[in-house]
């Protein structure tokens, strides 16, 4: 019973007159039934506000919102058949875990036996049966997170909303819970909208990702779209760690035999038709090559175990290159850089927008 969500022209303004702040500028998103949509962006980009609007906890200043085809503006959260998992879990402190999970069912006057059955089902799904009689204060962070999810699952709603649910967990737990959320989504197939500022979560969990900044949707697409064909320098720099390298310069000859001139060198690769352009290359699309014409000095060597990242200081700025872990590189060494032309991203230097 998954619903589609249509967000059309949503605007949200806080404050009045001179001190008005436009938190959401004009958001249009269509969420397909069963989809797992991620809203990702830095703090203050408006993603939580958008989530609250979908939930009905806030009303937009302008725009349309439909859930399962039904206009829900003005409809109370309880009537939207949604469930939400909060960053701080928001578990009812004076109730047992079982009562927490069953609370929404109780509000809908589901009879006790049916409720107990559902609670047991959900508890089994999340492996928290042994915690049913405890109070939230007696649980660990990870356990509380499971209970919060159980509370949302018990409802069997048409839409799931997640507000940075993993931010309060330590790194190891986060990885575990991420897999858990993905598994549950595959099991239940319920449409989900998930807010996070962590781009790794975004890439691993989402079927589609919506990148937001300053209340504007920067790009929406599959993880591959976002990663391989970012719509602007912001998205290119936000997704992927270490970030994409950007080199601004002048394309001299366009087309197949192109030359790209920039401070400190030139590269032979197909260029777009523009007076100035910024080349975006991910660390894994650069190589260290002893005899390449574009040269720089090794600044830092960062081994992470599976890869090693080398930061090379060039006249155009520092460039990060991913190399195999055993590569012999010394700090201070002078080295050349080669690029994989097939993976070049081109952006307009002024606006940051993608060119072709």
């Amino acid at each position, binding site marked *: 019973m998954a619903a589609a969500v249509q967000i059309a022209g949503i605007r949200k303004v806080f404050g009045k007159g001179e001190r008005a702040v436009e938190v959401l500028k004009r958001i249009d998103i269509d969420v397909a039934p069963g989809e797992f949509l991620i809203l990702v962006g830095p703090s203050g980009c408006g993603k939580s506000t958008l989530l609250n609007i979908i939930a009905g906890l806030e009303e937009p200043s302008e725009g349309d919102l439909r859930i399962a085809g039904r206009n829900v503006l*003005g409809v109370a959260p309880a009537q939207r058949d949604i469930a939400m998992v909060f960053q701080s879990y928001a578990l009812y402190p004076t109730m047992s875990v079982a009562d927490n999970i069953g609370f929404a069912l109780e509000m809908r006057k589901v009879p006790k036996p049916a409720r107990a059955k559902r609670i047991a089902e959900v508890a089994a799904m999340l492996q928290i049966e042994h915690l049913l009689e405890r109070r939230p204060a007696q649980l660990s962070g990870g356990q509380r997170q499971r209970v919060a999810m159980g509370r949302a699952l018990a409802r069997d709603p048409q839409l799931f909303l997640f507000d940075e649910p993993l931010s309060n967990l330590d790194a190891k737990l986060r990885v575990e819970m991420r897999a858990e959320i993905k598994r549950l989504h595959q099991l239940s197939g319920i449409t989900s909208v998930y807010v996070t500022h962590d781009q790794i979560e975004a890439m691993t969990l989402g079927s589609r990702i919506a990148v937001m900044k300053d209340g504007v949707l920067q790009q929406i697409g599959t993880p591959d779209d976002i990663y391989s064909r970012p719509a602007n320098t912001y998205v290119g720099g936000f997704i992927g760690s270490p970030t994409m390298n950007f080199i601004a310069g002048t394309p001299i000859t366009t087309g197949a035999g192109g030359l790209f001139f920039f401070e400190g060198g030139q590269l032979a690769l197909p260029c777009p038709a523009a007076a100035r352009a910024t080349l975006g290359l991910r660390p894994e699309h650069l190589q260290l090559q002893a005899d390449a014409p574009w040269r720089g000095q090794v600044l830092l060597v960062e081994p992470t175990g599976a890869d090693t990242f080398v930061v090379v200081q060039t006249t155009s700025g520092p460039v990060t290159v991913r190399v195999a872990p055993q590569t012999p590189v010394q700090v201070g060494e002078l080295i050349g850089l080669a690029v994989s032309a097939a993976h070049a991203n081109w952006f307009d230097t002024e606006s940051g927008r993608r060119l072709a």
Partner: protein
Amino acid sequence: MKSLETLIPKLVVAPGFVLGFAFIYGFMVWNGVLSVTGSRMLPNYDEFVGLEQYSRLWEMDRWWVALKNLGIFSGLYVGGSLLLGLLLAIVLDQKVRAEGVLRTIYLYPMALSFIVTGTAWKWILNPSLGLEKLMHDLGWASFKFDWLVQSDTAIYCIVIAGIWQSAGFAMALFLAGLRGIDDSIIKAAQIDGASLPRIYWRIILPILRPVVFSTILVLAHLSIKSFDLVMALTAGGPGFATDVPATFMFVMSFNRGQIGLGAASATMMLATVAAIVVPYLYSELRAKPHDR
């Protein structure tokens, strides 16, 4: 449906706000109205007299006595409670044994009605059978303590009883303030070579300034309202030597049939309290930005 959700909270607080505002501000205005009428035994709204009641008020010896007493009493009561409370708090902060018991002992008077306090102290300060007789029996034959019945000293008896009642409260506030001070500041000062008295004077007391301020505020407003204590201890006597604005207002309004005059004195009391409290409230509320 959403509008119901936003409507219910407003409906629910409405009676509270309406009645509360009527009680506070409505009655204030009503009292003001009474103070510009010539009401005597009963309210008389037909007889508008402008500020005549106020000028009468300020011409009365008794009102001036009441004001003078208020000044003396407030100053000594607030100052005395503050100092005693601070002293006790500092001493208790020195990791003494039985701190809990002592705190309970210092604070229990606040649980009593001012009437009970007044009645007890009236007995203790009884000119012939109280403190004086005790001192005589203990060997101090020339001790004389008839303060309670002498016009110029009776007010100090009220001060003593008042301090007895409220010093514990000041102590509780200061102790909480002292406990909130980060230990490491004290340790740093000790390493820097400061002696304990120095530390208190130069470091701790300045940190406690806000607590001092709010304590003075509460004590001051308590002293302006002090009606119960005076009534029990001296009933404003001898004569009206220990009258305070609160007792003045009551006597004029309910015993002497001078409602207009009484209302005027109440307005004066209100003005005094407002002058102290309103700036404080304003600055406190200003500090927090308004939520949506």
